[in-house]
């Protein structure tokens, strides 16, 4: 029993005074159901009197119905929430639990331990100060213990409790305990050099060394779990690092007030401090730290405040205010560790949204350099990342962002990746360092620019992007159109899927990832050709909407014309000019668009061509008319 009942009864005001000044500790529990993790949390809640009578009553009845402890209370039932989970007896998601003692308030992220829930564990670990790693005393350090230690340290936790549970089942043997501790230390060196480890022998079921030291382990001279949790310094590593505050919102109630609202990610701040706004690097001095309850003399990491500056510098949402003496760096290319969190694998070369702090940018995620096996911590070859896989890769952003390495500051170096079509959060990333290349390669400013090149040819550049199923008639129509353009004296070039695959892209196959790369290269070539002033006809199946969007984004405004050659699958298959459908149906060709690989039709193509009711020549005329209307056939 931890709450001080006497004081509650005798002097509630004094009690509340004391309790208002408690600190907060967030920790994560890792382990599988078998290790007694849920039992441990149930026990902590029970001993902290966080279980009320009505919950206890339903717990008792549930214990008898579905519990695994016979007539005894099954504490695990308290924390296994969702109905489906109860039926399967496993914890599927991150669940947050709360309890308080006289000294601290605790937020527990309760996460499942199986490998398929790595993403859930990473989410829980991302905000935790301490990790409790559950180990079954009978089994010792297992593969999953390694995985849990790796994931929690990866996400930046540096304080770990090695909870050696079920000591009752090994007769509270010191030898068993020592062996496991030695094993873990031997392994922990690989994780992080600054890891603080507290091993504790315990029995969650029997309540041994949970809230107080027990006689069963008189050979153990460390703290009980609760003693440790109540006293471990709430590591504000963040406090001793230079000031950082991502600007969330520009606070502008009237013309006389312009403040920058945000939550301080690192360090502290006082009026008079010199700060820089990144990425612009403009400097100013902090005038006031404004809150609704009055201005502050000082603000520290973790606080949400509003700052006003002496100068009217340019600063908006997504920028970061940093210490002028010790500013953050800025870059648009990073190496990062990525944990993939989506059932749809990473498509290297595809553009995702990246959100870091208050900033959202577009990022191209390159093919992983290697993956990390979460069980052995070994590097493994990886071409992509699947759900729950961790890999090291590089990213290119469409604009530079301020950052610190993740290991220095979680908020300044942690980001999420969002799929642009589904809006799902698909990845979690940790910035390791910037690739210097970004600042070294400058765009070559040319005297003879693209408009000069187009003018010389007396035309306007354009990219006509033909998309559609194999055999839909893309190349035939492109060919017919090219003849018409040629007849008008236009300079043109056709990029055809089959031809490009014999040369530039001959190293690529037909997996989703290779298709993305195929289109990325072709789109860039088309861009170079339009820079050269040509009218480029691109004839590629290009089945994915996001890659066509990528190509569109690459071109100058109005120069990209998407032509959807809309031939129904049945018609294309009937034509089967190259005999490919037959082979695909026979299983001789894999990943064939329309058969066993999807085609995503355009939603807003400039032109849709019906090939059932139009000949290729008629289609070409339609496209020519469209170009004429848009002024693309006028002089350059």
């Amino acid at each position, binding site marked *: 029993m931890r709450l001080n009942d006497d004081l509650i009864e005798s002097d509630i005001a004094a009690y509340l005074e004391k309790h208002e000044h408690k600190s907060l500790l967030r920790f994560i529990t890792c382990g599988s159901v078998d290790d007694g993790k849920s039992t441990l949390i149930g026990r902590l809640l029970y001993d902290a009197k966080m279980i009320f009578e009505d919950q206890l009553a339903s717990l008792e009845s549930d214990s008898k119905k579905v519990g695994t402890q016979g007539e005894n209370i099954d504490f695990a039932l308290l924390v296994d929430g969702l109905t489906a989970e109860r039926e399967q007896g496993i914890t599927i998601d991150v669940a947050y639990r709360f309890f308080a003692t006289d000294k601290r308030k605790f937020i527990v992220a309760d996460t499942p331990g199986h490998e398929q829930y790595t993403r859930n564990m990473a989410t829980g670990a*991302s*905000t935790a100060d301490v990790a409790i790693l559950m180990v079954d005393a009978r089994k010792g350090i297992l593969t999953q213990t390694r995985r849990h230690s790796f994931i929690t340290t990866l996400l930046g936790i540096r304080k770990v409790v090695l909870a050696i549970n079920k000591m009752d089942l090994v007769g509270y043997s010191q030898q068993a305990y020592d062996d496991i501790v030695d094993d873990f230390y031997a392994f922990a060196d690989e994780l992080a050099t600054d890891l603080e480890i507290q091993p504790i022998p315990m029995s969650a079921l029997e309540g041994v060394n949970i809230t107080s030291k027990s006689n069963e382990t008189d050979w153990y001279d460390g703290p009980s779990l609760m003693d440790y949790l109540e006293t471990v310094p709430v590591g504000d590593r963040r406090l001793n690092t230079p000031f950082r505050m991502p600007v969330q919102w520009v606070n502008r109630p009237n013309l006389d007030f312009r403040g920058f609202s945000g939550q301080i990610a690192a360090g502290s701040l006082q009026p008079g401090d010199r700060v820089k706004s990144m990425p612009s690097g403009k400097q100013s001095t902090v005038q006031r730290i404004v809150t609704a309850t009055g201005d502050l003399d000082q603000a520290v990491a973790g606080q949400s405040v509003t700052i006003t500056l002496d100068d009217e510098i340019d600063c908006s949402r997504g920028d970061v205010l940093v210490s002028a003496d010790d500013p953050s760096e800025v870059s648009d290319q990073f190496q990062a560790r990525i944990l993939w969190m989506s059932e749809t694998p990473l498509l290297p070369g595809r553009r995702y949204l990246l959100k870091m702090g208050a900033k959202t940018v577009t990022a191209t995620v390159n093919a992983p350099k290697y993956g990390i096996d979460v069980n052995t911590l070994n590097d493994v070859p990886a071409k992509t990342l699947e759900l729950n896989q961790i890999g090291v890769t590089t990213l290119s952003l469409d604009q530079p962002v301020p950052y610190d390495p993740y290991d220095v500051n979680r908020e300044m170096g942690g980001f999420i990746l969002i799929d642009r079509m589904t809006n799902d959060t698909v990845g979690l990333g940790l910035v390791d360092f910037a690739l210097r290349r970004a600042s070294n390669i400058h765009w070559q400013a040319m005297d003879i620019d693209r408009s000069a090149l187009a003018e010389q040819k007396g035309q306007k550049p354009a990219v006509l992007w033909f998309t559609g199923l194999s055999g839909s008639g893309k190349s035939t129509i492109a060919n017919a159109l090219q003849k018409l353009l040629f007849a008008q004296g236009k300079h043109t070039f056709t990029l055809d899927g089959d031809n490009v695959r014999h040369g530039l892209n001959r190293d690529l196959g037909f997996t989703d990832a290779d298709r993305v790369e195929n289109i990325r290269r072709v789109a860039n070539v088309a861009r170079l050709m339009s820079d050269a002033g040509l009218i480029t006809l691109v004839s590629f199946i290009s089945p994915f909407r996001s890659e066509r969007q990528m190509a569109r984004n690459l071109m100058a405004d109005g120069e990209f014309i998407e032509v959807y050659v809309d031939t129904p699958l049945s018609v294309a298959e009937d034509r089967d000019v190259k005999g490919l459908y037959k082979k695909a149906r026979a299983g001789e060709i894999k990943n064939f668009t329309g058969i066993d690989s999807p085609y995503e039709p355009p939603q807003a193509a400039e032109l849709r061509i019906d090939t059932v009711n139009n000949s290729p020549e008629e289609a070409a005329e339609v496209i020519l008319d469209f170009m004429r209307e848009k002024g693309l056939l006028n002089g350059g």
Partner: protein
Amino acid sequence: MKTLTHLDRLEAESLHIIREVAAECENPVMLYSVGKDSAVMLHLAMKAFYPSRPPFPLMHVDTTWKFREMIEFRDRKAKELGFDLLVHVNEEGVRDGVGPFSHGSAVHTDVMKTQGLKQALNKYKFDAAFGGARRDEEKSRAKERIFSFRSAEHRWDPKRQRPEPWNVYNTRINQGESVRVFPLSNWTELDIWQYIRRENIEIVPLYFAAPRPVVNWNGVDIMVDDDRMPEELAKTAVTKSVRFRTLGCYPLTGAVESTAATLEDIIQEMLLTTTSERQGRVIDADQSGSMEKKKQEGYF
């Protein structure tokens, strides 16, 4: 160097969440239930944007069976703080005469509260709605995200929740979809009371004990708040010193006998009590896991 207390940290996290919605969502709204958690949420919204005003309206889904004191409090508070207050009533339900005495708690709650809320969200096309729910209230809430994604049909799919690392929230949605945002996710009931005390936040007087007329209905003491209570039931009224631990529709809100007339008294009573908060609510009691079902159907 200043160290932050647990209340400081909870407050800072909530302000961050509220600002993030204002910065990223196009048409947010704050759902105001008039209870103590809503009172805290409103207070936090005022703090988040000071000296600006919160850039969103308040909305109350009025089942027409709320305590009269709640409605008076609601109107006065919104005016004092300068909020636009939208009140939505499910008029179809009113037309059909739906109420807890005639239709029972399940039908009444579904029609007037759950359907009413969906109607209101559809009507105003809100893409984000703040709610005052806390993870410690109930087991299925414990796993819900702070930014909880809803389909165009307002359904919650516990298996398709977005991972939510650090304080980086993915607010992006497709046409018709919406997010419910819970800035008080990590607060407990005790935190709420302590914060109300620290910040001097005004709450509806029904939380404090006073002599009130109550009748026993389905084993729970409920207050006689107006003359819509069936006469034979109302006749049995006795005056007791009672207060309410949660506030909702008066026929569905159990009173607890108490003499706690100050905040300190309430907190003291809460800390010494052995019954959890939601027990006074009739809707949870029918079956284990019932809240999860309601949430999947669109209940807040």
